[in-house]
């Protein structure tokens, strides 16, 4: 898993077939009123690379992820995704978002549409694909996440883990070049977390560029090429996954990992 070429600009070396797009963030700042959530973040994700964002809640990692496809508007800095400059005022944001799949903590499936329709609506309305082709693509992606047999089910007839896998299939149906995951397993029952993570693992193997906000340290260590630790709106530490998680150099990283990896260790003096 670690035989990945990190130099930016080269296509992903794992798998094939996927047209991957890189991300480049420079000096990103975001404030809500007087509360500065992102204090000048720079981060590069090479095409085909998998980067996990970790850190305590409120550290700004979800905000950072949501800035990449402009669900949040940054106050300062530049964002490049594939060939697009997202922060250019004249950018066609809808065109850019077609290349960027997003998976939410709360799934956000469309409850009035079944699993297949969830995967086809943007294909037909945005990409202008014909219904037959869209259905074919939807079925292929539902098969890919192991839910091809449940295509006719509505979201309320699916478990949380199944809903999240449909949400992944929905994003994949747009043939994205980059996938953003915002705590995809945080709202799931523990027994369904594994299914979602294994879908994400396969996606990484196929060479998809992925930026993942997660608390799953096992996943980060195994699947991510790089791990970025954020706290208080800045990047505290980043590097090869194994190194950041097993041998962090910064004290804040060490403290965070100790709490995450050993939740029963409660320090009341804090």
């Amino acid at each position, binding site marked *: 898993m670690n035989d990945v070429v990190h130099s930016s600009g080269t296509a992903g070396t794992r798998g094939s077939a996927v047209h991957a797009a890189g991300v480049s963030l420079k000096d990103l700042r975001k404030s809500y009123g007087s509360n500065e959530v992102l204090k000048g973040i720079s981060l590069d994700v090479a095409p085909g690379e998998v980067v996990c964002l970790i850190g305590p809640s409120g550290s700004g990692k979800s905000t950072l992820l949501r800035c990449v496809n402009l669900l949040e508007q940054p106050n300062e800095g530049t964002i490049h995704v594939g060939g697009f400059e997202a922060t250019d005022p004249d950018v066609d944001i*809808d065109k850019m978002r077609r290349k960027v799949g997003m998976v939410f903590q709360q799934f*956000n499936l469309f409850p009035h549409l079944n699993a297949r329709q969830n995967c086809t609506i*943007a294909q037909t309305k*945005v990409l202008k694909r014909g219904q037959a082709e869209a259905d074919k693509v939807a079925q292929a992606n539902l098969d890919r996440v192991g839910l091809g047999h449940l295509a006719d089910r509505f979201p*309320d007839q699916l478990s949380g883990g199944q809903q999240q896998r449909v949400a992944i299939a929905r994003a994949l149906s*747009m043939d994205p070049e980059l996938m953003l995951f915002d705590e995809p397993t945080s709202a799931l029952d523990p027994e369904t977390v594994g299914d979602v993570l294994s879908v994400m693992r396969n996606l990484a193997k196929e060479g998809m560029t992925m930026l993942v906000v997660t608390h799953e340290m096992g996943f980060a260590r195994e699947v991510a090429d790089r791990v970025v630790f954020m706290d208080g709106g800045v990047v505290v530490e980043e590097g090869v996954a194994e190194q950041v998680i097993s041998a962090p150099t910064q004290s804040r990283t060490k403290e965070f990992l100790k709490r995450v990896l050993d939740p029963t260790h409660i320090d009341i003096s804090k």
Partner: protein
Amino acid sequence: MAMTARQRAKVSLYVQAGIFVVAVAALVLATDWKTIGTSVFNFAKIGPMFPDIFFSGLKNTLIYTALGFIVGLSGGLLLALMKLSSFPLYRWIATGYIEFFRGIPALLVFIAFGYGVPLAFGVQWNVTIVVMISLGMVAAAYIAETLRAGLQAVPKGQLEAARSLGMPQWRAMVSIVIPQAFRIVLPPLTNEVILLTKDSSLIYVLGLTASQYELTKFGRDGISSLGAGLTPLLVAGAFYLVITIPLSLLARKFESRSARTKR
């Protein structure tokens, strides 16, 4: 002698049944059935009301209600969008309108648009126009609040998910948000139609010709023309129930469906 809880419940049931039987018996004995048969509900006088009650009363009630609902729904949608607008002036106007028309009796609105406005501006409005405007403007205020609540009840994540798939704002509203909002507002909107059906009777304050009579006016007219006591009014009342009870059942069905699933 101590009673168990079950015995006490049984005694309570007997007592309640006993009170009911006594009350009904007293009512039956005290009633002057002869007078009721002639001047309150006289079966013989029902016949002459048909079939006119279908072709003027019922027909006009349905037409007035439908016109009021069409104006109310379009006006309500406009007001709801104004109330959710980012432009403050629109929000103030919508809020003012909604509070005003929900706060005054609908009867005053009918009088204002039936007599006041035509007099003030020297215009001649026929009854249909007055009903459409009066009923529609009052309904718009109530429907606006219903629609606003429905649009806001669709979680923000739905819009975000749609936008992140590359849908423009209008497409996300049309394909994702509004269909869900519509399902949410269907039960309260159905109740709105029930209220409108009944409020359409307020048109009685205007001078109507026989062909413009809706159910209530038709019933009142029957009282004098047929000399049938209250019979025509009671028949008219029954016709309202024929309209409103199915609507009410429909609303309940929508409600239980949306409670079971968000589909």
